[in-house]
């Protein structure tokens, strides 16, 4: 449950526009129409006793504790299910109500273990609290009647227990699973006295439960209880912070005992998540204190040597001297660095500042290179800003939701739940994805159209959709002509209208039936509010940027942009990948997406940074690796990024890293990249520092220090110390001063400060004099670039083609329980759900190859080979196989190629021609040949 220190009004506030005035215990209160009496009472400062009610769920009216008396009405209505009326007079405390409530409590307590003193919820139990509130003194029925006190405890879930002996069957858990999470994993089995909560007739671990924690949070007793609380007791203080997993950027209350986190609870006031969470943010934070954490700096002359543990001063001196030596010998451009999307905005800012001002070049890049760099390019080119157009709340107003190349229930689960809720409310769903992802068909959610295209044919599908919209007269011409460049619009209309772009013509390319494309196009174009959400299935292609442009074209031509409920929404992968991009992590752009060649922009930075900046674009990460093999790039500073696991064509990445003279890795664990490192600087987790993250909706949220840094330094302090050693001192006492510098140099951040963040909770940029409260929805009156720009998006097939030798197409993705390269989640109990990466293969393809469920298979592409287990499933279509890349032992990226997006070099992870064969030796370990040995400490 939520900490008792938090107020809970019992039900959500009504959404009516009219206001209603009523009297609660002599206090006048005004609330919106549709509000419950319970909520109104809470607003008046009167807490009505309750057990089955909580404001995160709809009213249920089962516990009978919240009964009230209303003048002019008979009986004792439940205040949670009774709506306010004008002039209503409510009494919440009368002798009769007290008697009735005590009677109700007696019944509950007669079947409840009286072990309060040893119960983990002691002091934070709503049942205990209500017993006190109603003045329960004895239980007339005794405690020896029929009861559930011997019911077996379910401890199967690694993070929480289910103790039915303490359950009052209030259904809050069941309703949370349905209403908030949308999984429908829980139910009430039996009737009357035999009623009990069930995870579908099995234990929690074997059930469909996704461990989001919503049920645990909703439980008013210790029935569903975090194991960390059972082990450690209740917290003594709370720190609000922002999750460091995906781009949803959930706000959390870190509940702490001393310096130890005992529970992470999603924050009800957090606008990104509104009190919801997923298994990662809610439970998988134990990596922060995992025994594998490296907390001391280390150096070595060669990656073949053992690590030497040294002090900070020696490590930083060595790193700086190597950078300087290499630059003196090979030139200023022979070094560069990678900022981290897992680190804060402030830390990212400092790394790019160090590279631009300290190293003296623009060789800076970030992991967005390999995920959403095409989003930056495509949305900047068409709309004028390299970011999504909406807030997450916007989806609540969408009538048609198009999900392209994204798997929200796995990759962005809290937003996925929100999206599913909207579909349950009646919005239509269109999924464009090679796989039958979860939302194609789930309990109470079913896509109207699933365009199951062949990998690599996104642009052809988008053009076909546009063809239908334009040729059938479904476009919003008035919007497009008023808001966009008309000549470009007409040129684009002519292009998409060509017969070769029709669904019938593209069907042979995409594999999507023309009738489905036509149907989907009509539904999207006909929506009052149509919204597009997309992910890496759009960007990680050789035409990634083209597809982003095509999506923007679709939104502009249908007028689905510039208001709530519509828009173009990239679901950003990592917690701060939006922020890392905003902060100037690209080699051709200074912070705020301003090109390095802009004299005035450079001058503004030069005046604050006291240096002269390089006016030429720097090397992108793949270019750095190529240049390393060629010999013109010799040293790299990598903050929080494991390129030797996450980047494509790993043999190439490893060879490039090995060719460098100095690889500096700043991370919380030794990782695949550190095997090639010469310097290891121990970083800090999000719990150990102050700063900000920016999520996929441009929302800047505070990260607050919860516990001391295990290494003694936060990442921003490490970068400052390295800069000092390099002779470019950067002095800040606190990250708030870095944010002040950011605000002084970025026009979209001028209104942002820690004081305002503390006051508002979070801010969506742009936040400046024009929009001092931030900008939830962009491009409302006009596009950032002025006129929206339609661009022609010719479909160009990828060079990666299937052949008789490589007849299948491999595509990659994520799973709910693991995060990216798994450095964090693999060090938590989340491995129970995903202990290894597996290869999804269609039963037909498996049969042809003599592959059975669970067999080890060899996965081979033109560039590499690895081995993993087969999972036979019809989620993938024949001819397509799929895997994840969370486990280094799998080395999934050994097989992905160096083909990349034309505009940004974002790798084409989503299309690799492969062959799959049953591995000859089924008993051999899965570890592939050729993996480098783990560097010793």
């Amino acid at each position: 449950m939520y900490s008792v220190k938090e107020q809970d009004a019992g039900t959500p506030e009504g959404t009516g526009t009219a206001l209603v005035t009523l009297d609660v215990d002599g206090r006048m209160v005004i609330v919106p129409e549709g509000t419950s009496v319970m909520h109104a009472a809470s607003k008046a400062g009167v807490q009505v006793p309750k057990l089955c009610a909580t404001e995160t769920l709809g009213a249920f009216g089962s516990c009978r504790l919240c009964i009230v008396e209303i003048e002019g009405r008979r009986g004792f209505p439940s205040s949670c299910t009774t709506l306010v009326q004008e002039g209503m007079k409510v009494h919440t405390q009368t002798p009769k109500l007290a008697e009735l409530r005590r009677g109700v409590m007696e019944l509950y307590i007669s079947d409840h273990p009286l072990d309060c003193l040893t119960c983990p919820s002691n002091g934070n139990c709503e049942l205990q609290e209500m017993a006190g509130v109603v003045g329960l003194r004895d239980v007339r029925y005794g405690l020896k009647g029929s009861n559930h006190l011997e019911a077996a405890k379910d401890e199967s879930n690694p993070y929480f227990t289910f103790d039915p002996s303490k359950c009052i069957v209030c259904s809050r858990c069941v309703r949370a699973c349905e209403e908030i999470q949308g999984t429908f994993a829980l139910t009430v089995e039996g009737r009357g006295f035999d009623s009990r909560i069930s995870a579908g007739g099995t234990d929690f671990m074997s059930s469909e439960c996704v461990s989001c924690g919503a049920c645990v949070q909703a439980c008013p007793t210790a029935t569903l209880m975090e194991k960390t609380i059972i082990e450690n007791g209740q917290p003594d203080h709370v720190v609000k912070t922002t999750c460091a997993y995906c781009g949803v950027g959930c706000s959390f209350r870190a509940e702490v005992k001393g310096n130890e986190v005992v529970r992470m609870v999603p924050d009800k006031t957090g606008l990104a998540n509104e009190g919801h969470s997923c298994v990662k943010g809610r439970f998988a934070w134990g990596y922060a204190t995992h025994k594998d954490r490296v907390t001391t700096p280390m150096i070595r002359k060669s990656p073949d040597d053992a690590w030497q543990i040294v002090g900070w001063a020696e490590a930083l001196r060595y790193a700086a001297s190597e950078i300087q030596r290499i630059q003196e010998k090979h030139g200023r451009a022979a070094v560069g660095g990678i900022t981290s999307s897992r680190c804060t905005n402030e830390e990212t800012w400092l790394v790019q500042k160090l590279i631009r001002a300290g190293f003296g070049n623009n060789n800076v890049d970030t992991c967005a290179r390999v995920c959403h760099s095409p989003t930056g390019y495509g949305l900047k080119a068409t709309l004028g800003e390299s970011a999504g157009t909406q807030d997450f709340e916007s989806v609540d107003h969408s009538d048609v939701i198009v999900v392209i190349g994204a798997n929200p229930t796995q990759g962005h689960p809290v937003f996925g739940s929100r999206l599913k809720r909207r579909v349950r409310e009646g919005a239509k769903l269109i999924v464009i994805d090679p796989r039958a992802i979860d939302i194609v068909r789930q309990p109470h959610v079913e896509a109207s159209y699933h365009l199951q295209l062949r990998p690599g044919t996104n642009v052809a599908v988008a053009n076909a959709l546009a063809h239908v919209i334009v040729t059938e007269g479904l476009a919003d011409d008035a919007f497009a002509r008023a808001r966009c460049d008309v000549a470009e619009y007409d040129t684009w209309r002519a292009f998409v209208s060509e017969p070769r772009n029709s669904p019938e013509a593209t069907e042979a390319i995409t594999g999507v039936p023309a009738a489905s494309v036509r149907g989907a196009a009509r539904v999207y174009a006909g929506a009052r509010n149509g919204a597009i959400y997309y992910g890496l299935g759009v960007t990680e292609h050789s035409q990634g940027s083209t597809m982003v442009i095509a999506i923007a074209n679709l939104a502009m031509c249908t007028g689905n942009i510039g208001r709530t409920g519509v828009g173009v929404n990239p679901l950003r992968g990592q917690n701060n990948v939006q922020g890392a991009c905003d902060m100037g992590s690209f080699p051709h752009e200074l912070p705020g997406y301003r090109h390095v060649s802009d004299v005035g922009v450079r001058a503004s930075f030069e005046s604050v940074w006291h240096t002269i900046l390089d006016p030429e674009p720097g090397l992108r990460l793949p270019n750095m690796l190529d240049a390393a093999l060629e010999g013109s790039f010799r040293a790299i500073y990598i903050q929080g990024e494991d390129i030797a696991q996450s980047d494509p064509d790993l043999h190439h990445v490893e060879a490039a890293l090995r060719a460098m003279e100095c690889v500096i890795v700043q991370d919380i664990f030794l990782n695949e990249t550190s095997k090639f490192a010469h310097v290891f600087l121990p970083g800090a987790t999000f719990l150990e520092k102050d700063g900000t993250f920016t999520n996929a909706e441009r929302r800047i949220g505070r990260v607050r220090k919860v516990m001391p840094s295990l290494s003694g330094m936060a990442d921003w302090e490490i970068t400052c110390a390295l800069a000092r050693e390099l002779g470019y001192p950067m002095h800040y006492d606190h990250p708030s001063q870095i944010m002040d510098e950011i605000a002084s140099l970025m026009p979209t951040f001028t209104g942002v400060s820690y004081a305002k963040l503390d006051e508002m909770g979070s801010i969506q940029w742009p936040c400046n004099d024009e929009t001092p409260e931030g900008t939830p929805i962009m491009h409302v009156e006009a596009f950032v670039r002025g006129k929206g720009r339609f661009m022609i998006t010719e479909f160009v097939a990828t060079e990666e083609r299937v052949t008789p030798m490589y007849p299948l197409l491999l595509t990659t993705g994520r799973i709910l329980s693991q995060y990216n390269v798994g450095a964090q989640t693999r060090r938590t109990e989340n491995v129970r759900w995903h202990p290894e990466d597996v290869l999804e293969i269609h039963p037909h393809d498996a049969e042809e190859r003599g592959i059975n469920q669970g067999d080890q298979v060899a996965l081979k592409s033109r560039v590499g080979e690895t081995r993993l287990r087969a999972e036979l499933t019809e989620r993938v279509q024949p001819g397509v196989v799929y895997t994840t890349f969370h486990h280094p032992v799998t080395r999934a990226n050994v097989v992905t190629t160096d083909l990349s997006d034309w505009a940004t070099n974002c790798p084409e992870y989503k299309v690799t021609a492969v062959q799959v064969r049953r591995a000859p030796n089924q008993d051999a370990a899965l570890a592939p040949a050729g993996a480098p040995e783990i560097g010793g400490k």
Partner: protein
Amino acid sequence: MAATKLARMANQIGSFFASEPDHALAMEGVASHLRRTWEPRMRLQLIAWMDETGGAELSPLVREAVLANRERLTTPTPRNPGPTA
């Protein structure tokens, strides 16, 4: 960097702008993209390779765009004189 890889990247850029009906705009698109996003040594290597081999592997649009914008692609952008404060 391997010239063949640079040529492939340049051709990819060309394949996007090739669909632009106005040839001059297509040429500008290619040249501008190379100028604004490629680090100088990449541009210089591509042009050196073209000089050496004729660049037959490049698409006609890319070759034409590079040749027509050779100076722009090889001339360094001047640095600012110095911090103003």
